[in-house]
């Protein structure tokens, strides 16, 4: 019974999560947003380091 709960629960969670992703563009964009923010943070860190280095 518990095994069935795990299997069906996991499948249900994955399917609903995936459906939201495909059917709700807003959701899709929101969930993908962090990777771009992170990329900016990385670049911001690099450029700031360069600035810090060039500061007298």
């Amino acid at each position: 019974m518990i095994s069935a709960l795990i299997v069906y629960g996991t499948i249900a969670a994955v399917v609903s999560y995936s459906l939201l992703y495909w059917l709700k563009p807003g959701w899709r964009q929101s969930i993908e947003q962090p990777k771009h923010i992170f990329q900016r943070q990385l670049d911001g860190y690099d450029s700031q380091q360069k600035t810090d280095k060039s500061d007298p």
Partner: protein
Amino acid sequence: MSEVLDANAGSEPRPSTVPEGQNNPLQKAITHNALIRAHGIAAFTMLLLAVTFGIVASLQFFLPEATSAIASWGRLRFAHTQGIMLGWLGNAFIAFLYLAVPILSGRPVTSERLGWYLFGLWNLGVLLPGWLLVLNGYSQPLEWAEFPLLVDAAMIGGLILAAIQFLPPFFKRGFENLYVSSWYIIGGLVFSLMSFPMGNIIPEFIPGAAGAAFSGLWIHDAVGLFVTPMALAILYYVVPASTGRPIFSHFLSMLGFWGLFFLYPLNGTHHYIYSVIPMATQNIAILASTMLGLVVVIVVSNLVLSQRGAGRLAKDPALRFASTSVLFYLIVSLQGSAQANMGFSETIHFTDYVIGHSHLAMLGFATFAGIAGILHAWQKMADAPYHAGAIDAAYWLTTVGVIVMVSDLTLAGLAQGELWKAGAPWVVSLRASEPYWLIRTLSAIPITAGFGLLCYGLLKGPRGAGARALAEARATISQAGPSGTDQNHQNPVKALRMSYIAASVAGVTFFIFSVSLLGLLPQSTLNDQIALLAPAANLELTASEHRGRQIYAREGCAYCHTQQIRFIESDIERFGAATMAWEDSMETPHMLGTRRIGPDLSRAANTRTDQWHFAHLFAPRSVVPRSIMPSYPQFFDGTPTQPRQEALDLVAYLNTLGRSRELAWPEGEIAMREAAGDDQWTMMSLDADQLNAHPARTRPRGNAPSLRGQTPARQGRRLWAQNCEGCHGEDGAGDGPAAAWLKPAPVNLTEHEYRADLLADILYNGVYGSSMPGWRDHSPAQLAALVQVIQSFSRVEPIIRDSSTALGAEIFQTHCAECHGEAGDGNGFAVANLPIPIPPTDFTRERLSMAASLRVLNQGVAGTTMAPWGNRLSDSEIMAVASYLQTLYEPEAGAGE
């Protein structure tokens, strides 16, 4: 709200509106370089030390005598695994966190000073005392949790400090738009703090299989909730940082994140498949293991797609290590799913296959991720030395080394599993493993050289070369094409924000769910089973036995000798009835074990004599010539005949293993059968042909296979050398290395002539009360070959018949027949009541030389009930008896006198 430009979209700038303070580029680069450097150097120092412990332990497979109390195999293994997980990986992860957390959260870590406290506690409060204590014999016999409780307390302190250091920046930042690495870091820190005490402390207080259930949870949680989250945090960080492009899909990464955190903790019991832990629990673990494989495929696919444009072999070494780590992660995870399959587990569990699997996880996947994290952190430190050539060479050396090691151990495991299933003698599986073990040790050479080169590359190269190398590598990566699965961003929908909160609660719920399902539930079931099936009175350990148990634990005996006979045919046939829950219900902590280098010891009681154990502990090769068991001379005053208290205690403990079930027999078995109803697993244990089926255990005479018609195997002398020489000597003269330590002494076979049927009986059943074991794991053809070898040693002169035999017969009937029987067949009426129950000689099937007869009659046989008659019979009477004995011998049909 502020609008910023996505700088990583290559030719297609993408506007993004995001909340203030969450994604703004840092106003000033926050660096914790001193802490990164300190943890990085500590990580590599501990890696080299931990690897050295492992190499020395692996060398002891070939040089088992090269040991000492401190450097005994078990203690080295403890130091090796704890050093890799906490010393190397722990420091590497923390070094990475000092780079990643400020960038991911946009805030510095809590406090630099706290960082130094954490550094000190982790290395000087956990690792250093942990190593010193386990090497000096203070440990707990729980896998991946060997440091003693005192060190566990310090470790919990370290995890709390780590949480205080690295979590607040995320809490201050808020959880919206949190990148997947942040989730793994938060998850790893929080769940490690929950699972470490659960796995390191609870099994210390819960006995037997129920304790093993918690142990199993930790074995997997250590990897799943500490190592894997941190390693994946690094991979998800390094890949985009190195390529300069966002990962392929954040959606998939989060799908993987929650999938892993839900399923990993449910895997633990797959370390105890076919054990007494309830099948319902095992099924959950098997199912979760299979599903975990699917989730890992999603994670890996995402990471592989995220490296698009970097080429097959990334130029940046950090990315290259990360990329290889991803590959190892895929393989090790699919391996894990396969290993949980019951049919496959039956073959490979307890073998080197599992050791290969754990090396691939810790030395392949996690170590490569850790190296990627440190390399990347080094590249970001403007003044850090960086020697590209050394690091490049290190990559190839470590990669080749790990592949060779894991492939080799995998093949070794398959070979061992097949030999065990085929019922081959244990020593055969050892001999078959030797070439693999040699390659395993040799594979450590490139790995260690690689680690050494990495240290060199991070300490001796030109300063700032890392940043230049990364920039050059990034310039070669194609930035063309879509950068992922989305194009436009907008503020996260409210439901998504709520979903993160819900998911955080769910994460903690998953953990509690797993502990309940895989820990508390089986404990309850096992307790019910114990209450139902255990005998009314179960013998407690005496003080000596208890001390022996502590020695067994601290020397890591359970790491080579399991204490669980699984519910599978090959185990039951080789060792006896499967272990039931009540049998180890007083073993705290449990020592079920997950590896068999030596045979299972669940039923060690009454399998060997104390003298044999003493000789075996003092000099294992004296009684088992091809054994790889470490020797423990420190337990003796120079000779096995003078055991110290430690040896007495240890052997006393060995003699308790399986004792309860033997004492309960047969009434206990009948009662269990009635109580168990139709429980198929209990019935399987009760229906075993032999309660103790150990092939060496002596049995009453009879039931030996007939060797007539057997074609003796050609390898008779080799079998002799492998199994018999230690006691009986090379030429059967009873002068092997162990001969002087055993009473009765091993027989001088040159002085004896045996009939083949008696030899078959002795070889098959052993000699009860002596150190002569049974050899039932050998085929009839092998036994026939040994019979031939033994008979070839005989130098007994032809039978001499003289006039004194009548007198000899009279004396024999008066003094000897009560033990040896009127016909001299060893079946006298007193046999059943002998104080030392070694069967008297059967003179109808065994003939001694005159010289041996006279010596025995005059002096008796030490260690048996054969008394000296020299002071009670005259020389002529003794001569007459010796002559008479010759006439009792009844050669087999066809054999000449």
